């Protein structure tokens, strides 16, 4: 028979040591899905570089609209901005939804959730660790795509200053700093879709429902955002200010929208996270 602590736990069991972040990350990184996402994150910038190199010629000049594609090839940092711009409204949303939405629901689907809970990993701790692991992976994915874009873009298009569409240049050091700010903003703003997926993940046992549900919700709001008649109601959408990070290209930077975006994202994230914890704490785990 085992030695027992006063709490009734077996000697060697400490709630705060259960499901450590390193263990959860190890569990996640043993999954092909995780490796796949990261491989995609590396591949995407390379793919875009190839595409830009191939079609560099005719169309770019005749387009008089201001856009980031026109200046995408002027430097590695420019290319990175273009990659971020291209991925903000879909690709990164899916990545966040995947990492956050899959985390609890997939355990429920495998049936391993009940063994983790009977270990016992306290429910709130399980959720917290899952949340943190999802955040670490999502941010790591975001950083991967950014770093690959900076490095590969730099090699392909030169380590030069940022050239904004309106002909202003931003020095490399300053540019990197701003890029860090943009990635930081995106990391926070995407928490909205992430935490929504996380909440759904605690509600359903089907990972697809959690991931798909949150992505679908974001798309619905993105479409509604096009409806001018809704007026300022749209400012409260979870998708609001998703491109506010482009404000960091201004000189001087006007951080008003960024600030609003951060606050609103954090509020949404807090609400969804609270809903997730509330639901999970009361839930009967029957899967």
């Amino acid at each position, binding site marked *: 028979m085992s030695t027992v602590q006063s*709490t009734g736990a077996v000697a060697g069991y400490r709630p705060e040591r259960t499901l450590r972040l390193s263990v959860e990350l190890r569990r996640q990184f043993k999954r092909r899905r995780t490796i796949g996402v990261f491989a995609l994150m590396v591949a995407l910038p390379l793919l875009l570089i190839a595409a830009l190199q191939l079609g560099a010629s005719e169309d770019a000049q005749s387009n008089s609209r201001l856009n980031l594609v026109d200046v995408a090839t002027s430097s590695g940092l420019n290319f990175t901005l273009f990659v971020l711009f291209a991925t903000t409204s879909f690709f990164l949303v899916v990545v966040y939804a995947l990492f956050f939405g899959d985390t609890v629901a997939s355990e429920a689907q495998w049936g391993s959730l009940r063994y983790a809970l009977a*270990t016992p990993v306290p429910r709130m701790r399980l959720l917290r660790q899952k949340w943190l692991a999802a955040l670490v992976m999502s941010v790591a994915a975001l950083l991967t795509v950014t770093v690959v874009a900076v490095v590969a873009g730099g090699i392909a298009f030169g380590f030069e200053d940022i050239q904004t569409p309106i002909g202003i240049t931003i020095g490399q050091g300053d540019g990197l700093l701003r890029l860090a700010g943009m990635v930081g903003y995106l990391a926070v703003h995407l928490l909205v879709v992430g935490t929504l997926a996380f909440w759904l993940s605690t509600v359903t046992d089907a990972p697809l429902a959690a991931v798909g549900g949150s992505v679908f919700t974001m798309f619905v709001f993105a479409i509604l955002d096009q409806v001018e008649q809704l007026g*300022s109601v749209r400012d409260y959408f979870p998708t609001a200010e998703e491109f506010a990070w482009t404000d960091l290209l201004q000189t001087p930077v006007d951080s008003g929208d960024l*600030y609003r975006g951060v606050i609103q994202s954090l509020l949404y994230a807090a609400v969804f996270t609270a809903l997730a914890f509330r639901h999970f704490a009361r839930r009967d*785990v029957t899967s």
Partner: protein
Amino acid sequence: MRPTRGLVRPSPRPGARATVAALTTALLSAALLAVPFAGTATAADDVTTEDATVPSGTGADAVELDTTVYVPSSATAQDPAPAVVLAHGFGGSKDSVAGDAQDLAARGYVVLAYSARGFGDSTGQIGLDDPDFEVADVSTLLDVLAERDDVLLDGPGDPRVGLSGVSYGGAVSLLGAAYDDRVDAIAPRITWNSLTSALFPSQAGAVDGNTVAATPATGDAGVFKRLWSGLFFGAGSVPTGDGLLASLTGGATAEGGAASLPQIDPSTLDSAAVEQALTCGRFRADVCAAYQSAAASGTLTPEIAAILDRSSPAGVLDRITAPTLLVQGTQDSLFGLGQADANARGIAANGTPVSVVWYDGGHDESASEGTTEDLRELVAGWFDFHLRGQGEDPGTGFSYPVPTGVGAAVGSVQGGSQTEEAAAYPGIGDAQPAERVSVPLSGTVFPVVTPPGGNPAAITTVPGLGAVTAALGGTTVEIPGQFAAFDSAPLDAATDVVGASTVTLAVSSPTGTATLFAKLYDVAADGSQTLPSGLVAPLALTGLSTDPTAPTEVEVTLPGIVHRFETGHVMRVLVSSTDQAFAAPAEAGVYTVALADGAALAAPTVDGAVVGESSSSRWWVLLGVLAGLGVLGVVVARLWGARRRRQLSVVEPDGEDVPLRFEGVTKSYKDGFTAVRGLSFEVRRGQVLGLLGPNGAGKTTSLRMLMGLIRPTEGTISVFGHPASPGAPVLSRLGSFVEGTGLQPHLSGRDNLELYWAATGRPAEDAHLDEAIAIAGLGTALDKRVRSYSQGMRQRVAIAQAMLGLPDLLVLDEPTNGLDPPQIHAMREVLQDYAKTGRTVIVSSHLLAEIEQTCSHVVVMAKGQKVAEGTVEEIIGTGGAVLVVLDDPADTDRAVEVLGVLPGTSVERSDEGLVLELGGTSRAAAVTALVGAGIGVDQVTPRRRLEDAFLSLVGESS
């Protein structure tokens, strides 16, 4: 060409900023589940409107003014309120200012909006803010206000009143304050100082002032601003009175009234009157004649100048004593920043308080809704302090949009607009004179051709659209050979230009006169050039040297702008001979244009601070709040954990002997289904307990409750004396395998076991991994992916996982499903040996043989209830029957006789053999009797085994 997605994102909608505060509050309150999105509620007074027609003027010039008075409910005879007169822009009517009027009235002012004579439903003719007519009308309106009992009076017939208006209405505000000293505060917006300088500009010559946007006034000659003038007069001469350009009225839409041509009596038809009506519309004859002359000749005559000067505040600024808020736009090619600058200098010279505000907008581009809202606040704040003595002193500061390197309207692409503020407008009153940065320029002597007829002409500005750079997305059009360009070196540091730069040129002309257009371009490193705000400084030069080798030096003031020249960009002063928007001389000629010796660009700068520089501090505040919330969260979690530990400290004393106790446990679901009802039993240490029942008996539900996955509706479950709540630490003594293996299919069996143990956070040596692996007995298959396993292999890995760490209580649900007979046998031995170490095993099954052969004790469940409990022998032993199979079936009859005589027995025949109810007789006695009678016995097996017991107990045997 495929459309590509550009960097175009929706600009912030109005109110977006205002709600940030509300959002922040919501975050602080951390009311996470019910976030109050506070609306932007304005404590709006109920406002009633009174329409009236006010007669003004005498004789032939008597008119009826169409007015509306907006009365807030707070203004009463007992508590009179200050009044504000709102004048509309050119081409508008009283309806154009309805929005502003409602807003001010809601703030508690009695607001009088009126249509100026010649506009809207007012009668009369347009005199261009003539002091004898339009300005006198203002005095009439003040008289009207003085008679209202809900308007605050400073004295008999002297109401407390402010004037405000945009453009045409702004000028009448200034003139009204100059001519009527009852006016207590004014807030004119985007208006003129001198119509002469505005319509016939010439920005050459010395400037009288040290202000940032000081611009020379037109002397004898100016360059006719033909496009704008045409629009300006066109708006007044069309019969409907509709604004041709909404921008003329400051962006408001003018509702076309039923205005019509001046009534002409056919009986007195006079050809002059008809012509006047058709060509001049509602303009007064003298104004009309002046315009026609100017449009035809493009030159400024003394007659025209006289009419325009009469309508200009420039000459009467010294009479203005009412505190003045001057609002001017940076996107304004009609009334530039220089006009407000001249007003500020003139009014401040009297010691009158003046505050200057530049905003991103003007006649070329209406301001964003956010900016419009900000301006309303500013004007209301000005009146609040100067008319009511309420609110903060708005002071005599100067604010302007933060300079950006973005050309004209392109700025909206990136959204956001910030404002910078300085304590005072440089160069007026006691304020320091404007600071100027000297930027050296270089360039040779350029011959500049002026083409015959002034065509082709450079295109820079389109009235109402501003810079064509913005409108067309291209660069401005400069005609080769028609310009001189002087460049600075690429800038080492970004240079903000706030105001009008000056430069000295050396010009010669064969005729002694020249018409030139000076511009300040921003040239990017790639050579693309942007004309900030699309503004041009026309120069009407006279008395020039005709000798190109000895040119005349001319001091030139470039357009007033707010612009940042980025690092690496070049500042280019470009002087051209033509511009589409202005009249140019018809004769061809060649001028020479060069920089004067040692000339440099003197660019004004203002040392302002960005408003709401909280922009960086508020991020710290946010960070602080988040950190605070984080700390709070940790503290709460600690306290909650401590409380939880206290709750868990209640332990039943016999816990170690009773590893599991169910007491009256019921589980009902919301839909009314009751899975387990009043279940009570105990498991003692060292037992192998079987939980037996058909599918749906509530076995798995009970095990889930025991694992803390489901909460019981009633009753308690204790594990080793501790309540088995979700996540209870005592569950760490439990090993379980319940319904499904829970293995991760993409991992190998070994990885599954190792990761499972790692997740428990317990020391690796406690795992007894090798023993568990031995139990799984998978051999090399352990390192293959679980995906490739058979059901039995998965089952064994899952059981091995349950046994990791050798738990004191092992719970297995249907453990032998999918195992082959030898494995089942081995499993039984493993479980029985396990119990012999003093640990306890619970096995659930719907297979009777399984329970009978594995378990020492059994709890029988059916339909959520316990139907029997005891040792396996007790359950089996109640009543005894044996099946007797004889060697030779022919002996059956004899055997029945032999057995029939034994005490208490009864015999029945069956297909399998004889079923003997033993009664009091032992099996041995029965067999002895048979053998004694010479009957060969093949088998004697217990007949009434658990299966019968089970079926009879659960009531399904009958």
